[in-house]
């Protein structure tokens, strides 16, 4: 479990992280979302003791990171996949990690297999790795010590679509086993499919947090997007019920929940070809919330 309390980091007159508090629970994947420069990486560096905080504290399993004995066995960390020695081989990077944590060398092979780096790829030097391969190696390094907590900064960066899906499955399974996962991203769609909890951060401040449903509920009144074989009839039926349908592309946008549209269509005997929620998606909410913090400067 990760507990962040009143965390603040100031650089001169610039506040990178401003009074941030949240918790990441075991068995859950927590998504840490924000535009570039929002303070995600700074927060994560403070978590693992690489950056001293100006104020506030972070504990992992009740302890400050620097007090955890052999921290690699408790907390898996991937802060920057590119921060590896160019002249070392992938296998060597993992070997050093395993040595430092006091693990048998067969663990290195297990991890290489887990992230699908072939023996010949593992023998190559990092200089010749693509970002996706570095990312896989970084995930392998984070998982080396079989930790209970994972802290991953932009782990999907550079992974191909299959790789992103693979990682999603991996982290989900890891959380289902009781692990705590915190992963950051500036891309919402990467996170919204996997995260149980989301923390939205903008300009160093948390602007919203909660699960997907809570966040969506705060995104504004319900809307539906619908396409029918006979749009005009459906629009008339919706208007008769007091809603306000508007043409949108090939279909209609209407200010009610999809369930109301479905019921109306059933009553009017119209065949629907597409019906979905048209409310501001998380993406819109995300942009809107983070844009707000930028307009107002400070909240």
């Amino acid at each position, binding site marked *: 479990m990760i507990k962040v309390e009143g965390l603040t980091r100031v650089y001169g007159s610039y506040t990178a992280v401003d009074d941030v508090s949240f918790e990441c629970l075991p068995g859950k994947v927590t998504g840490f979302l924000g535009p570039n420069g929002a303070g995600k990486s700074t927060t994560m560096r403070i978590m693992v003791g690489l*950056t001293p905080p100006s104020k506030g504290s972070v504990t992992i399993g009740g302890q400050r990171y620097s007090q*955890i004995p*052999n921290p690699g066995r408790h907390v898996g960390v991937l802060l920057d996949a*590119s921060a590896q020695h160019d002249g070392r081989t992938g296998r060597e990077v993992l070997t050093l990690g395993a*040595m430092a944590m006091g693990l048998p060398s067969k663990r290195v092979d297990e991890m290489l297999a887990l992230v*699908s780096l072939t023996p010949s790829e593992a023998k190559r030097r990092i200089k010749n790795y693509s970002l996706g391969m570095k990312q*896989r190696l970084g995930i392998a390094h984070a998982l080396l010590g079989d930790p209970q907590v994972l802290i991953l900064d932009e782990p999907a960066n550079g992974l191909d679509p299959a*790789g992103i899906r693979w990682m999603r499955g991996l982290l989900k399974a890891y959380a289902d086993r009781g692990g705590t996962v915190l992963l950051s991203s500036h891309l919402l769609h990467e996170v919204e499919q996997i995260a149980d909890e989301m923390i939205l951060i903008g300009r160093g401040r948390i602007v919203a947090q909660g699960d997907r449903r809570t966040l969506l509920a705060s995104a504004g009144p319900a809307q539906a997007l619908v396409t029918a074989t006979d749009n005009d009839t459906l629009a008339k039926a919706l208007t008769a019920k007091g809603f306000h349908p508007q043409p949108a592309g090939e279909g209609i946008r209407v200010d009610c929940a999809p369930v109301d549209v479905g019921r109306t269509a059933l009553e009017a005997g119209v065949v629907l070809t597409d019906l979905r929620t048209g409310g501001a998606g998380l993406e819109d909410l995300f942009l809107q919330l983070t844009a707000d913090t930028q307009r107002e400067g400070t909240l």
Partner: protein
Amino acid sequence: MSAPVPAAVPTLPAVTHATPVPFSRTLKVELRKSWDSRAAFWLLVAIGLLVIAVELIATLVSGLQDQDMAWGDFAGIAGFVTSVLLPVLGIMLVTTEWSQRTAMTTFALEPRRPRVILAKALVGVTLTVVTVIGAMVIGLVCNALYAGLAGHSDWHLGLGDMVGFLIYQVLEMLAGFAFACLVLNTAAAIVIFFAFTYVIPGLIALGSSAMDWFDKLAPWIDFQSAVGNLASWDFPDNGVAQLIVSGLIWLGLPLFFGLRRILRAEVK
């Protein structure tokens, strides 16, 4: 590589009791880092090859021209080469963590940073001792070759010479190490080290000849001449005290401020 694989992390036996990372393990890891990258590996190979090359040339030239050489002389020639390259090794041990940004991983796995730096210093000392012993063995072989070429030989190598020579090399390496901790940048540390070795002694000599009071002060701040006494194992009055005082100034201060910087540094 793109095919999805079953996503299950192989488990390890749970950590039953919390044991901090023992220093011996940190030391082992740091020792491995001193040769496991391409640049580090070739630096070590280059030191070895240069020593051998210089020694062979010295053997041939002195043997054929029948100059008087002793085992100690050969060791001294090797020492000149290593006194330039070992500090570079000491510098690289520290600065690559920053230039390659591996310090993030290193300090995440061992947050007690002073232990990591101490391990690195010990690795530097270990490699220096190995190199010096290696240089002496090469000197021995070259002295034997010289005996064959010149028809006579001198196997003199005083114990004092050897110990002094070793300490001299260790201190020069540590000077590089200390500057590296201070600036955390390979190029800058190397420039500072060479300025310290070749420029500062000249400036001190200049100051001594111009000002009387400085002439009296100079031996206490001139590390290079103090450490030179070590190599020749011949100390003037106060020689040892001067070595300690100048050593504290040129090694102690940069190391102190460097360590302070590393302990407080934000690692990115």
